[in-house]
């Protein structure tokens, strides 16, 4: 049976792992390659690396980091941050990334989804959406690392992106990110029911129960978290055993 996936996320800034609260207040959380290797060994199902300071000058640094990660770890990983062109994707895939994640660039020019899917396959195109629940009761798409609001509803944008060829959606709730109070179950379940591609839930995972909730009530295919793994608040083997004991299909 296909299992639910546990995905540690490493935010990378200047070659180090960092983590903020509600997208701000960055703290250092260690060497990404060592962390990645540790997570792979502990039973993480995949890894995500997001370069949060991606600039043109730093593209080379990122591809070198990707290459080192690919040589070290034996599970799949996704890389995101500032990817705009086929060349960006090609370099990251050649250096050993399995998937790439796009966000703002895809929103501003949705044709890149179609082009990336055609050239590299939908299976390697992950659409990251940063979303926020507003006072009007709707979930809106935010760009540029959560700094810029748009008028697009998250459901509308996600559906369009799937029609254009994205293979997975990484959904981060800005209301929940960094709070450790649980994932955004409603919007995750809404997207998962609406769309034929896997949904990776992100933002708010603080306890093993939160993961159980997002896999059941939230209908997520995978769940991503960062700080609880980086700061060893939840150990991956313990989390997986908890979920198995609750009856979920989980790899150990």
């Amino acid at each position, binding site marked *: 049976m296909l299992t639910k996936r546990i995905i540690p996320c490493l935010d990378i800034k200047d070659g180090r792992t960092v983590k903020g609260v509600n997208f701000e207040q960055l703290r250092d959380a260690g060497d990404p390659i060592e962390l990645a290797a540790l997570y*792979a060994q502990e039973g993480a199902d995949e890894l995500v690396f997001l370069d949060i300071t991606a600039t043109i000058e730093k593209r080379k640094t990122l591809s070198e980091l990707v290459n080192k990660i690919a*040589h070290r770890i*034996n*599970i799949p990983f996704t890389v995101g941050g500032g990817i705009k062109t086929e060349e960006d994707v090609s370099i990251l895939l050649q*250096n050993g990334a*399995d998937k790439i994640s796009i966000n703002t660039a895809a929103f501003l020019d949705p044709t890149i989804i179609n082009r990336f899917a055609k050239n590299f396959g939908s299976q390697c195109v992950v659409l990251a959406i940063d979303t926020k629940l507003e006072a009007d009761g709707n979930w809106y798409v935010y760009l540029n690392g959560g700094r810029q609001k748009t008028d697009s509803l998250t459901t509308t944008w996600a559906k369009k992106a799937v029609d254009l060829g994205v*293979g997975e959606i990484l959904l981060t709730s800005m209301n929940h990110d960094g709070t450790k109070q649980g994932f955004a179950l409603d919007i995750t379940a809404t997207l998962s029911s609406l769309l034929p591609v896997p949904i990776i839930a992100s933002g708010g995972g603080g306890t093993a129960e939160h993961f159980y909730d997002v896999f059941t009530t939230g209908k997520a295919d995978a769940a991503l978290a960062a700080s609880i793994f980086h700061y060893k608040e939840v150990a991956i083997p313990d989390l997986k055993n908890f979920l198995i004991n609750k009856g979920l299909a989980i790899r150990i």
Partner: protein
Amino acid sequence: MKTVIIQYNAGNIQSVLYALERLGATALVTDDANEIKTADKVIFPGVGEASTAMQYLKERKLDLLIKNLEQPVLGICLGMQLMCAHSAENNTPCLGIFEEQVKQFKPLDATIKVPQIGWNTISNLKSVLFEGIPENSYAYFVHGYYAAMGAHTIATTNYVEDYSSALQKNNFYGVQFHPEKSALIGEQIIKNFLAL
């Protein structure tokens, strides 16, 4: 020992090379016919679309070359599908090494996502390729098409229905999952192949 990874217009070739390097093995990534013919082991990887991949192979006459190889050959993911008779992906005639047909996942309800992405079990393991691999081990899959069950099935996985997650005929082996990304289980399978 000389191991060759066939270079063609498919993704994830580097990942296979890195996996071999993690095991202390080396490999040559090439589309040169002579290098492929003289290798001890040939790996035919691939992530991509069937018809464009077959067209690329035909243009370089790699289709006939692969079919006629006599040393151990391991097809991975799309590589395995291309070794089958025919793929439903853009109605593509393939190499015909295995008689099995490649079909598309057609889920009965919206709770089943396509492509299948993630870890699933491999069962009814029937080949030296799986020496030391426990039944129902987890492997990493990413695919929207699958090889049907058949005479050459050496591992079975269930998604929508039972299908061939590995095939073998004589010197030809194929795995639908990605051993290069399947943690320790995948590493053991690669070691087993290199030891054939």
